[in-house]
């Protein structure tokens, strides 16, 4: 899922400035599941802004809405109708959601309330870890299901660097060395032969280096 967390309240208050009528918009997608921008967080942010407004003697007028997904235009009409009645939209969706709302709300300022951090997985309760950088050229088949692009701090494709120490990365002793994980896993799978396959230079044109990407599926059009 896409994982995010709250921006500092002082940053959000800076965005809002003198604006008084605020629509706080949550999303029932990834940010609900990672407890960053669903209905519960919309309620909490509304309470905090309400307190902030009252304390400064200039209350906010806050409306709340949480839609199924802010990254699908079909789920936006109610949100957009409300947006038209407010000075600004504070979106608690990921960056994709914030942008789609902004695209469909001309003349209305849309601010992000959360930072979108990464595509990740639950490692243990209350903890998420980055697992995918959406490079567009998945190599998991050859690395035992462990992504060197994401989990190696240097995104190395052919074994570890000299900074691998006792299974940990030199960047941070809390980070496991991705290549150590890969070799251990290939060994357990009896597929260490894969480690001998030299990966050619990666085709980064499929990643961000080719500019913003697009996917067209004519079968769905």
């Amino acid at each position, binding site marked *: 899922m896409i994982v995010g967390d709250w921006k500092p309240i002082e940053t959000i208050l800076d965005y809002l400035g003198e604006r008084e009528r605020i629509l706080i918009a949550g999303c029932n997608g990834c940010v609900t*599941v990672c*407890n960053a921008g669903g209905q*519960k967080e919309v309620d*909490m942010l509304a*309470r*905090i802004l309400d307190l902030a407004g009252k*304390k400064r003697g200039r209350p906010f007028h806050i409306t709340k809405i949480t839609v199924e997904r802010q990254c699908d235009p079909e789920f936006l009409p109610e949100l957009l109708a409300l947006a038209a009645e407010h000075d600004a939209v504070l979106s608690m969706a990921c960056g994709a959601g914030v942008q789609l709302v902004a695209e469909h709300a001309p003349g209305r300022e849309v601010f992000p309330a959360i930072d979108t951090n990464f595509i990740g997985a639950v490692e243990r309760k209350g903890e998420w870890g980055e697992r995918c950088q959406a490079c567009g050229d998945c190599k998991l088949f050859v690395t035992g299901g462990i992504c060197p692009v994401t989990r190696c701090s240097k995104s190395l494709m052919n074994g570890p660097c000299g900074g691998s120490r006792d299974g940990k990365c030199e960047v941070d002793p809390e980070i496991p060395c991705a290549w150590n994980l890969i070799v251990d896993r290939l060994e357990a799978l009896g597929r260490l032969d894969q480690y001998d396959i030299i990966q050619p230079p990666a085709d980064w044109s499929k990643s961000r280096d080719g500019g913003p990407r697009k996917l067209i599926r004519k079968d769905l059009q």
Partner: protein
Amino acid sequence: MSDMSKLEKWKGALNKCIRCGYCYEHCPIYKSTRWEIDSPRGKLILLYGLLSGEIEPSEYVAGKLMECFHCGRCQKACSSGVPIQDVYQDARELLIEAGFEVPGTTSQTDADVCALCLNCVRMCKHEARSFVDGRIVTDLLKCQSCGSCLDVCPKQGVTIGRGFGTNPDELEREVAAFFADGRNPEAKAIVFSCGWSNYPGMQTANYEPDAATAEYKVLVTVCSGRIRSETILSTLDAGAWGVLVVSCPEEDCEHGGSPRVKARVEALLKPLAAIGVDPGRVQVAEVAQGNPKKFLEVTQAFMKDVRALGPLLARSEA
């Protein structure tokens, strides 16, 4: 249909109940309704009826047995040593086998609302929640009705049908009434208190001088982990100068609620500090079971802090 005669093994235990009623004052359910049938004594009589065949198993009977916060105070207070919790648990199992699956005070998930985030499954110390056939289900026999799962749900999809004053909406109504204009001119704070650790002690010790009760209200929440972040914020928004959460010491909390509420308050203090709310206004204090003196001490210390800080909002803004 299950055979209620399986309760036969508890006949001796049920006979031991001398109807003294010591269990009354310790039962949060009875304290809420004041009905005999909601007291441990009343429920034991109900079970005696099931055993003798004078009462038929029914949803009503199952409901009464499922309405329990598992604090065990009744058992501790029992003058005859009736193992009330064990008797209840066997009776529940038989009633469920007989098809009377009544949620009572256990937490349930609304499948239409649930985002399947699995937070509630992961955090339940009693392993009472699981993902089965595409939805979250509660094991009625494992759930201890602590309510720790209420706050972790991102969609308010976890609810407890019978809260007996401890559900978020019930607490928030009490808070709103306490701070309602003109009703309590001295009203300053809310003390949310774990029912396990403090409630019995609070009742047996006349600890609240009249002047103090005008200033703060104690709301019993069963486990402190039941307190949602939103409830703390809405209490401040309702006009409270401060909020104190009294929990069991971490190592004593059977539900994992105590460390959880501490983490929850810690997370709230950051944004609150950013909008100029002094951290002294939202505090957590640990009080071990049966220590009303400590409860009074921490409450008085908190009230001293809150009085020094003054109102958070002008009365008209709350």
